[in-house]
């Protein structure tokens, strides 16, 4: 069964790689404006973009060649695992992605980690004490946090932890002290929702006949919770967290911008303005593959957690 999941996902990844690259190529071609001028603006900045710069770019990159030739060239390179060079910086796309996407992923990993550290205890506590003061308080905090754009949460974190307390720098990257505030801002937004998800899942499981039976047959509350409740609480939560992880990568643009954190959102926006096709194709492709990978990991965890799926596979 695991083999089947992996095979299915590998085929999906190959399809994603081809379709994302092809679609971005076509969409870029459909955008108005002259390629050479746009790339020249990206390379030289608006003070120095001129006809001479655009013509130099056109000659340098061979932009006069038919689109189909350029597309096939990309496809052949892709088969060789070569994503090409950025048209603006002229550095290899993989190098640019390692920096930009790598930074986004670093932020996403820590945001998810902090979110779990907050959401799991809060959600479990609220689920085990439904209707009590703690549950109501967590609901209120969750609603307040969800009602704020992540940008506002980030700004409040800066005002509190940078301006008032002076614990962390306002913006920057390259050292762990810069990571805490942006990751925590994202984590609070994520935890606001996932804590409620964990709370509801806990509540459902504790009220379920199988949990009551476990207690009835003489297991202590701790034993029943560890062996019977935890895996069942985790099942919907794993699926939800994987969806949230995808939303997270899409949604960290504002936080990256506020904290001057290098990220794929900023890089993609600039690449689109500058018609940096290899960079857009590379970024879209890698992001597509990351989504497939996240789904694969979630599938494998659910498969491992849920004995019903394993039995189904064996039968």
């Amino acid at each position: 069964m695991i083999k089947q999941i992996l095979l299915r996902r590998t085929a999906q990844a190959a399809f994603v790689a081809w379709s994302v690259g092809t679609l971005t190529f076509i969409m870029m071609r459909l955008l108005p404006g002259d390629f050479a001028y746009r790339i020249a603006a990206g390379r030289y900045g608006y003070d120095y973009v001129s006809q001479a710069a655009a013509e130099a770019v056109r000659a340098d990159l061979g932009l006069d060649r038919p689109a189909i030739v350029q597309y096939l060239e990309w496809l052949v390179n892709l088969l060789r695992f070569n994503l090409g060079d950025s048209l603006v910086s002229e550095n290899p796309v993989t190098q640019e992605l390692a920096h930009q996407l790598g930074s986004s992923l670093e932020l996403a990993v820590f945001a998810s980690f902090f979110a779990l550290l907050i959401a799991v205890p809060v959600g479990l506590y609220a689920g085990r004490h439904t209707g009590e003061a703690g549950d109501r308080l967590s609901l209120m905090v969750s609603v307040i946090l969800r009602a704020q754009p992540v940008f506002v949460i980030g700004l409040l974190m800066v005002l509190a932890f940078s301006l008032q307390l002076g614990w962390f720098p306002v913006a920057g990257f390259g050292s762990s002290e810069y990571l805490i505030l942006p990751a925590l801002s994202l984590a609070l937004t994520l935890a606001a929702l996932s804590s409620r998800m964990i709370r509801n899942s806990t509540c459902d499981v504790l009220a379920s006949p199988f949990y009551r039976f476990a207690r009835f047959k003489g297991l202590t509350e701790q034993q029943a919770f560890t062996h019977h409740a935890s895996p069942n609480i985790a099942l919907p939560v794993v699926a939800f967290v994987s969806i949230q992880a995808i939303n997270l990568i899409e949604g960290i643009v504002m936080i990256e911008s506020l904290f001057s954190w290098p990220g794929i959102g900023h890089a993609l926006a600039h690449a689109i303005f500058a018609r940096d096709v290899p960079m857009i194709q590379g970024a879209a492709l890698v992001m597509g593959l990351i989504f497939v990978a996240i789904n694969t990991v979630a599938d494998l965890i659910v498969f491992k957690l849920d004995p019903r799926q394993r039995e189904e596979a064996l039968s």
Partner: protein
Amino acid sequence: MFKKAFIVVAIILTLWLATSYKGVDPNQTLVIGAPFEYTSQDLSKDGYIFSRFQVTETLVEIQPDGSIQPKLATHWQTSDDRLTWRFTLRPDVLFHDGTVMTAEAVVFSLQQALEKPGIIHQVPLNKLYPEGDVEVVLELEQPYRPLLSVLSHFSTAIASPSSFEQKSGRAIAILKGTGPYQIQLLSPPHKLDVERFDNYWGEPARIRQIQYLTGHRAESRALQARSGQADIIYTLDPASISMLEQAPNVDVYSESIPRALLLKMNNEHPYLNTVETRRALSLALDREGIAERIIRVPGSEAYQLFPPALGDWHLKELEGQKNLQKAREILTAQGWIPGADGVRVRDGKRFSLGLVTYADRPEMTVVATAIQAQFWDLGIEVTIYVGNSSDIPYLHHQGTLELALVARNFAWANDPLALLLDDTRTHLGSDWGHMNWSSGELNQLLSEMTLTLDSEAYFKLSQQAASILAEEMPVIPVTFYTQQIAVNKRLNNFFYDPFEQNYRTSEMYFD
């Protein structure tokens, strides 16, 4: 099992946080923030960042008052016919890779600039060669007075030959200049760290390290200054200035820079091809309102092209103001009669134009809508298109541009002569200058200026040239720019270069 996996991951992440901490020594580090991004080490593209942070230097350097002083060249001589320029190089200058700066290395560096698009191509260069170890010779096809201005530009900075090694495998050589700071860490497009170069030929830098961070958002940059994280923040937004002015740890500086917001137009467009119409458009503009309410720098309104920082070219006596009534009278005299919907009509055609602008500078789209409203009061319908900065030169060369709102930089050199020579080369005009307009009188003045050596005569000629542009208005100036900077009070000897070529951080020091 998952619990164990989570604990392992948690330990790894915590270790990562602990080990990747790199504290900044505030006593040795100057932190600077600004919105400027860079993508490469190519001097033709991003050389400005390396010249501002004093990694690279040029043969000659613009001073804050606009004069040109020796830098890597100690002196220069021109032949009687002004076709041959001989630059004598400063002795004992080392590149950051430890090699000596020779005439051959300087020529090689300039040749690299010639292979890229850039300002150096405006020089009518015939030959460039080293003579001995310390002399560089430039032979010109015709006299070219702004040569020193061009050689002070960041794209003509001198770097070690090893900086230009072409891509070897996938690695690109690190840029090695001659300045008081050398590159320590490159992380384009957002970060650049430089450290003191101990073998610098001149006065060594007083602060050991400079960290530069691109701040995308003006709010974050202002907070960096307010919290003390950054010592200098360039390009503050108007909303943050009052907060920073009240902060006990920060001084706010406002400096006029040679950049202007202009209305570029097709001077052969049937609606815009008379001086009278262009004057009517200019009279309809409420520049004071735009300066005060949008740019938020009262007094930055522009009735001429050249700001006060460009001394010889700025017309001191020139004044102007909005006069909508007079503007209406001019248009009526031109045959434009108010139509039923308020838009003026002539020969059955409505006075309707498209205005292109771009959002690289956030105030531009807002100014464009203000202009749209002000022209509407005059009976002109304007449709705004917000595009990419490259749309301006593209539409210029296509001939389809009608109106454009642009922010033009006059600061790439100490003197706009080179820029105007380029603008006036053909009747078509230039990418960022006027379009489809020429003046024989202006061309005559400019060619006299390239030949004159007398500074008084030069001043008179530049004033005459500026007057022609102010009267004919082939482009309509709107406002000048002001650079707003927050500087931490612990920093001494802060200096701002209005030409933005050299921030002179090596001369600054902490309390």
